[in-house]
């Protein structure tokens, strides 16, 4: 490409970067300055971050706990299922995979309304954190299944398993000793995706949460509506500090899993 076209493309790229990055910088800055409206000259402080910790540390821990529980459930449900789908690549498997992937396509709000209408009257369940967990698992499970399935699909599982079977390994043993180690890059990529998405999930959680069960993003919405800009920014900063390393690890793991497949 010659210079003028290239220059326009460069400018568009830089403008897009500026559009995405500037508010992020603003929120980091606002979360760390004494008075955002007076600017940096009012001095830097960790006061707002401290205030966020006092107000919202419960939300932050709830989100971490939810993400880990969500990871455990998606591993238990997703990894064996991906194996079964890889061993039986028939029409029935396609239909089941397609159906479990629906939460990727249907907005979380609609899924939450569906869950609320069926289970909302069971008070013990409705007010328990496992109700939110169900929503998170629903949303993240397809990512785990697909991530593992895409790695398993490139491996000749049948020959590997036949080899092990001829040496006397039973199906469960073969799953643990052959399938899981071979699927590890996919499991890792899937796990990081599940944790990242669970910590940031808002659309379902907002509908499913109760006043006593506020997750990190629910707390964020709360702070945007009712706290001063500095506190809201400091909270967003805390969220960035958690989510950005996860996102980078997730992108690294996905790229690695894809490289292994080639």
């Amino acid at each position, binding site marked *: *490409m*010659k210079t*003028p076209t*290239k220059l326009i*493309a460069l400018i*568009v*790229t830089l403008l*897009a*970067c500026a*559009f*995405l*990055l*500037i*508010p992020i910088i*603003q929120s980091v800055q606002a979360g760390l300055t004494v008075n*955002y409206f007076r600017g940096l000259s009012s001095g830097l402080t960790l006061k707002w971050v401290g205030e966020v910790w006092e107000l919202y540390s419960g939300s932050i821990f709830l989100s971490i706990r939810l993400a880990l529980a969500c990871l455990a459930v998606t591993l*238990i*449900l997703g990894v*064996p*299922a991906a*194996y079964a*789908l890889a061993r*039986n690549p028939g029409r029935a498997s396609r239909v*089941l995979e397609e159906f*479990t992937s*629906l939460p*990727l*396509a*249907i*907005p979380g*709000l*609609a*899924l939450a*309304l*569906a869950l609320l*209408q*069926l*289970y909302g009257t069971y008070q013990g369940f409705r007010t328990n954190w496992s109700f939110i967990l169900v929503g998170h*698992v*629903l949303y993240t499970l*397809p990512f785990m*299944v697909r991530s593992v399935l895409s790695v398993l699909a490139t491996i000749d599982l049948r020959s590997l398993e036949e080899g092990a*079977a001829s040496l006397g390994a*039973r*199906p469960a043993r073969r*799953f643990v000793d052959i399938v899981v180690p071979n699927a590890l890059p996919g499991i890792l990529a899937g796990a990081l995706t599940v944790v990242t*998405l669970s910590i*940031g*999930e*808002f*659309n379902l959680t907002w509908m499913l949460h109760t006043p006593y069960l506020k997750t990190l*993003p629910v707390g*964020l919405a709360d702070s*945007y509506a009712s706290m001063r*800009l500095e506190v809201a920014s400091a909270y*967003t900063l805390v969220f960035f500090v958690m*989510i*950005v390393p996860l*996102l*980078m690890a997730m992108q690294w793991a996905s790229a690695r899993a894809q490289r292994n497949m080639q």
Partner: protein
Amino acid sequence: MTQRHFVMLCLVPLAIFTLAFLALPLARLIMASSESDAGWGIYLQILQTPRYLSTLVQTVAVSLAVTAAALVISTTAGLFLVRNRFTGRNALLSILTLPLAFPGVVVGFMIILLGGRQGLVNQIVPGHLVFAYSVFGLFLGYLYFSIPRVLLTVMAAAEKIDPALEEAARTLGARPHRIILDVLLPALAPALAAAGAIAFATAMGAFGTAFTLATDIDVLPMVIYTEFTLSAKIAMASALSVTLGLVTWIMLLMARSISGQTVAAGG
């Protein structure tokens, strides 16, 4: 236990979970939409009630505008980043994919920081330019989370285009803009269609961003939310949810059949 039995057993936990927490709730949602006096005619009512119809039109209009803008910006940036290697390229790429992990509410807050009462634009430009809570603010918010999604789809496709094609066009004397129009864009067309469908579906269903910004704007997710929580019009909220879900599902099904990609409709 035979191999066959074991493989079937592996599917059981997923099947039970999906039945209990996806299939049955969705069936309940569809049934609930028919439980008002209007029965199944409620879907006709959506089109006959001016408020719902204008909401539908406005949501589609904003989503289409965002799709178009994201396609133009992300295709330009994506092609540039695929075709050029330079220092800082990876940094630019990281910035452009960063919002992928942001929930919709955070995206909304980003727009408030740009165009709210205490926002950047209002500080630089005198005269109280506050646009965060207008349709334009909503458009910017949707654009914020659409750029990375479209960018990744376009870049994945652009990397597969044979550079020899461009090379050949250049040797034959084609000007840069003709190479883009005649070589690159046709080769990218399936990816652009898929990315467009993804962007459109995501914008249609975006709740978090609308929740922060669209306090005075009627977009479908917000109307569903207020009908359900404030007006307690459960049947109408369900019917609108079913409609919205069908639209986004069909769009993403189309996207996947074109490009074979998986993308989530968060935001």
